[in-house]
């Protein structure tokens, strides 16, 4: 939404209100509202500001909104840059969640909208900031994620036990079994593995949402890492009758990568490609170091990045589904009909890993023709972050193998 212009009250047809009446309305609002000049210097603040920030309107007028002196300064530089670029240069409303600090030092979560008001020349004259305290909502969200995390720990023991016992039955530790029994027990074991892999995915989602996972990059050769991941997936491709090809220009590309995390993101993308490509189709994995500005799948990538692509000739993503594919639990209708068992979490996890480490992930797709996913990582390295947990390896590829062996794969056209 582009900034609003200052209204001409004669045109609105409403009874002109005394300024005191407007103030009364603003002061009874539960959200805190500030009006600042184009530099963010507060001209007016309503009474609710005292409830959220602890500062009275009288204390804040004349100071810079969201400055360290008041309630701000907790977000990083890039956040404030983005805010000012949006409202001043682009003259757009800025909407975001952020963390602020009250007068007494306590931190609160807020949801803020900052909108520019334009003068007659189209220049930003005022900014209107509306902020709501969402600390309670955020706490609930964190409690929910912590619950999911705890539950998925507790829930994994029973299926592990069933899977191990099934394995002993299959090894005929309790005596010979018939072919029918073997097939039934195999289904039992594989179903349990699926349950475990859903729990793994849920646990990862909760670790992503709680922000408790670490990224520990070390020097690795991206090409050879990809090459071994592709080789590991080759039996699955063979089993599904898909031609899996790998192309990486000769030289090695050594830079700081968190190997398990990167392979999880890449593995999720690759296993989708293998799964959603019919027999006789192809999946092409390539990687390249970007040395001059290059466009990949409609996105211009600056030098200093390493781009991996996974192109398939599969079912493709319907256009109305394309904006949702990275959302949690989302599965497009065309694949959900054929494959009931996906979690809808693979690409969400992949995107979280890539974006948290300073990279980008995107795709182009045409339904009925295929999809190409791209992952770009900075050659300066994945950005490290500390946290008490690692993400659980998601064994989606090996899962597909067990499905193959149970003959469960639908006949694709």
């Amino acid at each position, binding site marked *: 939404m582009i900034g609003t212009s200052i209204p001409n009250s004669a045109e609105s047809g409403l009874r002109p209100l005394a300024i005191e009446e407007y103030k009364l309305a603003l002061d009874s609002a539960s959200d805190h509202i500030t009006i600042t000049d184009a530099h963010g210097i507060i001209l007016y603040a309503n009474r609710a500001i005292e409830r959220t920030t602890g500062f009275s309107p009288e204390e804040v007028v004349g100071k810079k909104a969201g400055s360290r002196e008041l309630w701000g300064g907790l977000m990083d530089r890039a956040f404030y840059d983005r805010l000012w670029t949006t409202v001043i240069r682009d003259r757009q409303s800025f909407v975001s969640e952020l963390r602020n600090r009250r007068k007494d030092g306590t931190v609160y979560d807020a949801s803020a909208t900052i909108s520019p008001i334009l003068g007659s020349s189209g220049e930003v004259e005022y900014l209107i900031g509306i902020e709501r305290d969402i600390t309670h909502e955020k706490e609930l969200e964190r409690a929910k994620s912590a619950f999911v995390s705890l539950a998925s*720990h507790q829930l*994994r*023991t029973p*299926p*592990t*036990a069933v*899977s*191990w*016992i099934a*394995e*002993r039955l299959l*090894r005929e*530790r309790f005596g010979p079994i018939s072919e029918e029994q073997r097939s039934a027990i195999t289904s039992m074991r594989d179903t349990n593995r699926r349950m*475990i892999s859903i*729990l*793994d995915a849920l*646990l990862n989602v909760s670790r992503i949402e709680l922000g408790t996972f*670490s990224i520990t990059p070390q020097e690795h050769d991206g090409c050879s890492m990809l090459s071994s991941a592709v080789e590991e997936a080759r039996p699955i491709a063979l089993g599904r009758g898909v031609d899996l090809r790998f192309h990486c220009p000769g030289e090695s590309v050594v830079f700081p990568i968190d190997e398990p995390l990167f392979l999880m993101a890449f593995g999720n993308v690759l296993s989708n490609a293998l799964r959603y490509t019919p027999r006789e189709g192809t999946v092409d994995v390539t990687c390249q170091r970007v040395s001059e500005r290059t466009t990949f799948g409609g996105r211009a990538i600056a030098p200093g990045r390493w781009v991996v692509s996974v192109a398939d000739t599969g079912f493709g993503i319907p256009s109305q589904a394309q904006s949702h594919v990275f959302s949690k639990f989302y599965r497009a209708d065309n694949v959900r009909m054929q494959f009931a068992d996906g979690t809808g979490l693979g690409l969400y996890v992949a995107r979280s890993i890539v974006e948290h480490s300073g990279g980008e992930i995107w795709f182009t797709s045409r339904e009925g023709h295929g999809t190409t996913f791209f992952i770009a990582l900075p050659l300066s390295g994945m950005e490290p972050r500390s*946290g*008490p*947990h*690692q993400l*659980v*390896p998601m*064994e989606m590829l090996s899962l597909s193998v067990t499905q193959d062996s149970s003959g469960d794969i639908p006949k694709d056209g």
Partner: protein
Amino acid sequence: MEQQTNSEVILIVEDEDVLRKTMGDELRDEGFRVLIARNGSEGLELAERERPDLILLDILMPVMDGLTMMQKLREGSEWGKKVPIILLTNMSASEDEIMHAITRDEPAYFLVKSNYYLADVVAKIRERLSAPR
């Protein structure tokens, strides 16, 4: 039971009855001699007395957890410093804590139970037992 007298001894320290029994039965079927303990405190006592060739150690347990048991074992005796340990986890503890304990208390390895078939755990045990110590 003749063949088992010369076989290697594995101590399983695990509080979940079904997991402990299933793992124990499988290892016996694979020709190992198996000792079992239900928590770190029982495990520590049994380990010091019987000196098994390898310990499979759960992490989250009542009375004494696996990481504490491992630390006490490593500090307790020359034998305790060297006995190979495979930590079994269900991702419940903080992995950073585990990794820290492992780097401090080599040699120990760490497997996520739910991600492994029994056969993988057995293979890991054989690999550890044949590795130079």
